[in-house]
């Protein structure tokens, strides 16, 4: 059983569209994260939620809006997609110090 799952795995869309990526964890963790990994593999934190409350909100355009309906889910909605949003987006969760990552969603904006 997958611990941290994301859907979709691949997402190809045109500039200006709005899209969502979903994340679910079945580990019972209180904290969830969204990261963006660029083409050079640089990984940067975007958001973090602890028990449905936003605790980390990095310098991310407000076109990106996370939503946590419950502590097992953290979704990422992106409005007005731009070419520069193309990247791999990873969801992660943690209860202690180590983080558990999902398989990633490769977003390509054309």
């Amino acid at each position: 059983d997958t611990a941290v799952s994301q859907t979709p795995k691949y997402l190809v869309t045109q500039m200006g569209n709005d899209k969502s990526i979903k994340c679910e964890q079945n580990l019972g963790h209180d904290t969830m994260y969204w990261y963006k990994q660029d083409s050079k593999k640089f990984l940067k934190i975007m958001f973090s939620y602890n028990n449905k409350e936003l605790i980390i909100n990095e310098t991310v355009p407000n076109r990106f809006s996370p939503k946590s309906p419950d502590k097992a889910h953290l979704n990422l909605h992106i409005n007005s997609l731009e070419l520069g949003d193309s990247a791999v987006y990873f969801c992660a969760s943690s209860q202690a110090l180590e983080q558990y990552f999902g398989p990633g969603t490769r977003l390509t904006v054309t």
Partner: protein
Amino acid sequence: SQQGEEDPQALSIQEGENATMNCSYKTSINNLQWYRQNSGRGLVHLILIRSNEREKHSGRLRVTLDTSKKSSSLLITASRAADTASYFCATDNGANSKLTFGKGITLSVRP
């Protein structure tokens, strides 16, 4: 801002050899973690070392931490082809469990 900087950026070794990867960081930390990422996959946690620890072992992994030099090293002994992956160090300064990742090291182990 980026915290960890790994070196070398790429490392190619023969199976059976040891691989040493280094990470330097800039600010004080609560702990430092190493992660592995296989191609097309998510990151997997390997080992964590706290700021008051100097060395830690886990199987074929050995990690050291020198807080005076703000650096860490990850040693993989008796490498295997399956160790081929990207390796990242990540620092935790204790604020909201936020991890700051380095750029990663690409390790290739030739069979």
